[in-house]
């Protein structure tokens, strides 16, 4: 346990090597980014990562607290000082190992976790010093990238095969993490995926300028090396039923089918040409590569593009619109910027790239031309009222405050619902009114051999929670199948 043990001699020495004052007076590192003007027209990754020097310096800011509050902010309890101190002493691969003890996807989470709401919000700097927190996310990414680029990333050891077949339904972060842990335990794992590519939202949703595909592919390759089988183009509940899987000898099933169904607002004109869900827009670009000339899949490139919503999906869509050549890319959100659920970094990046924020506006109608193409969106101006059930101040319409804005493409990004295919196809499976699969604290559903996690259980949530669920379900299914 030398790697992350706070009482190891090297850790003690490290703590003493720099004074607390020096640590706390170091300013927070700035991420190296592509220039906003250039990147707004390119699919290259915006964040370029930290250099070794930057990372080590940032790592010295971490006070190695005896009671690290940051870990309480992490949904899966990563040993944060444990990995950061390994960076400080220059042992980057070891740092990655500490991360991997808890997280199956550190290179992904380092890029997409809402750190400002999780670990970094609970950092000593933030809580006690009222200073900018240690850049935990950047450091996580640094260690994971270093490991990947070092060529020292090996597929984890797997226990001798136990001959027991288990399956994951869906290849998003939950399914992939489950597969990895079960393979390590010696199970024969098959991952079924409905689409023609593996990775779930990490591939079809989150764009490459935030999460390059290669990063996900490395993880998938590792799983393949560990013996995990992937069956693409296979919809469990359509192509093959859960009963068929049972008959084929699968002893346990982990359903991680995500929350892939787009919601619309059901307002007048919403079916006009040019109005689509963020899922359609992002799928056309990210999965079907409609932005490239070679692709046979088309995508509408508008001059005036409006994206409705304030979450990560909305940010990804509006920034995609810029990259597809929009002259005016607008984000229309009915509350104020403070209530936006998107990651803070994405909000900053979107603004730098030239996205126009129209907060406290809500579309009420779309108007089209004679060919049925949208030309105008009618917006209702809003103001904030009392806090609602979510604790956020709820928006109320300002009487008479209506404006018309010219648009040729509108992306509706107001949330997603659970994918109903598996819930509808399994007899006896308990499903909530919202359509999520009901599970107990062991992530086990009303059918004992069927476990579930990620967005199909939580509704639209986060990568790290999905990853955590995948790992937990693996541990619990293992206990269940081995009779403990």
């Amino acid at each position, binding site marked *: 346990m030398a790697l992350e043990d706070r009482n190891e001699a090297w850790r003690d020495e490290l703590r003493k090597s720099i004074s607390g004052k020096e640590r706390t007076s170091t300013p927070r590192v700035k991420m190296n980014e592509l220039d906003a003007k250039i990147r707004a027209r390119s699919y290259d990754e915006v964040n370029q990562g930290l250099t070794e020097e930057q990372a080590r310096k940032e790592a010295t800011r971490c006070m190695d607290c005896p009671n690290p509050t940051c870990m309480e902010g992490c949904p899966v309890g990563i040993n944060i000082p444990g990995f950061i101190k390994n960076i400080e002493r220059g042992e980057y691969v070891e740092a990655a190992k500490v991360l991997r003890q808890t997280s199956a996807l550190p290179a992904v989470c380092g890029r997409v976790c809402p750190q400002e709401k999780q670990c970094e919000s609970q950092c000593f700097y933030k809580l006690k010093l009222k200073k900018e927190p240690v850049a935990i996310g950047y450091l996580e990414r640094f260690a994971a990238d270093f490991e990947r680029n070092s060529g020292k990333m090996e597929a984890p050891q797997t226990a001798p095969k136990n001959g027991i077949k288990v399956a994951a339904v869906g290849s998003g972060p939950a399914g992939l993490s489950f597969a990895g842990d079960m393979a390590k335990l010696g199970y024969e794992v098959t991952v079924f995926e409905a689409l023609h590519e593996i990775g779930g939202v990490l591939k079809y949703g989150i764009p490459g300028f935030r999460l390059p595909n290669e990063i996900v592919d490395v993880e998938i390759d590792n799983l393949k090396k560990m013996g995990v089988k992937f069956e693409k183009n296979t919809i469990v509940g*359509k192509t093959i039923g859960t009963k068929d899987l049972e008959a084929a000898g699968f002893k346990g099933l982990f359903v991680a089918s995500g929350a*892939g169904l787009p919601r*619309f607002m059901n307002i007048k004109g919403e079916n006009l040409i040019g109005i689509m*869900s963020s899922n359609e827009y992002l*799928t*056309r670009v990210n999965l*079907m590569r409609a932005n490239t000339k070679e*692709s046979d*899949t088309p995508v509408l490139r508008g001059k005036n593009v409006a994206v409705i919503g304030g979450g990560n999906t909305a940010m990804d869509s509006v920034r995609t619109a810029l990259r597809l050549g929009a002259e005016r890319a607008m984000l229309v959100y009915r509350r104020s910027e403070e209530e936006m659920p998107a990651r803070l970094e994405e909000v900053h990046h979107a603004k730098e790239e030239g996205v126009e924020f129209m907060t406290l506006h809500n579309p009420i109608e779309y108007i089209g031309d004679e060919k*049925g193409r949208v030309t105008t969106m009618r917006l209702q101006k809003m103001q904030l009222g009392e806090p609602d059930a979510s604790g956020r101040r709820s928006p109320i319409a300002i009487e008479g405050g209506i404006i018309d804005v010219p648009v040729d493409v509108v992306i509706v990004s107001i949330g997603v619902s659970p994918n109903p295919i598996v819930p509808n196809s399994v007899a006896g499976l308990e499903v909530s009114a919202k359509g999520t699969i009901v599970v107990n604290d062991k992530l086990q559903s009303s059918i004992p051999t069927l476990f579930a996690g990620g967005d199909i259980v939580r509704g639209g949530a986060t990568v790290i929670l999905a990853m955590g669920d995948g790992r937990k379900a693996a541990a619990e299914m293992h206990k269940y199948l081995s009779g403990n």
Partner: protein
Amino acid sequence: MYKIVDKEFFSENVVKLEVEAPLIAKARKPGNFVIVRVGENGERIPLTIASADEKKGTITLVAQRVGVSSTKLTDLNVGDELTDLVGPLGKPTDIEKYGTVVCAGGGVGVAPLLPIVEGMKKAGNKVIVVLAARNKDLIILEKQMRELADEVIIMTDDGSAGKKGLVTNGIEEVILREKVDLCVTIGPAIMMKFVSLLTKKYNLPTIASLNTIMVDGTGMCGACRVTVGGKTKFVCVDGPEFDAHQVDFDEMMMRLGAYKELEKEDLYKIGK
């Protein structure tokens, strides 16, 4: 995977492909469709499963060349493989004994009609098929339909085969002649619209199978949405078959044109 084991031209632009897909062959029901992709840059396009051979583990698709993707598909030969094939998708047709069923198809709609005709016949219905096209050369699957149906009526715009007239003339002839319990129609949106208007006049329950633009085919994107009875529905999961009298065909036709300009730009890929 997804190897083509048989290919036959029904007409210059209509091709039958038999493809290896054991799981789909086993799971499919009449009315289901698949999504097909040809090549790494290929588009995902929906095609109805015309028939299936569970023992052989194959499904049959009938595709009409209309643009880039359907051309790439129909250019494949026996021994070639589809890049991706997923299904069966959509809700199956409600096959039961209705009495007399008129199945009216035009253009690409004729192929998807085939399994429905077969199913309806097996369920004990009297099945009358109306096939319509601009001219004789564009009439497809007549032979197969004749083998299955009680009667086949051919309608052509120019009278070069069967009777001169539109699909609606053929249907109306049957309605005026005998009691019809159900009409099933598949074809271009404009055709289905007029069939629907006609049968509404006679209060004849009518099912239309909608061929909207799709991407995933699993309810994930909403590209396929239509308005049915004033509500937005996703054709890939709520359909593809709906009560024709409730469908907003004008909106559907409009939405089918969404990518017209962009599709034209891609035609160079098939040498046009």
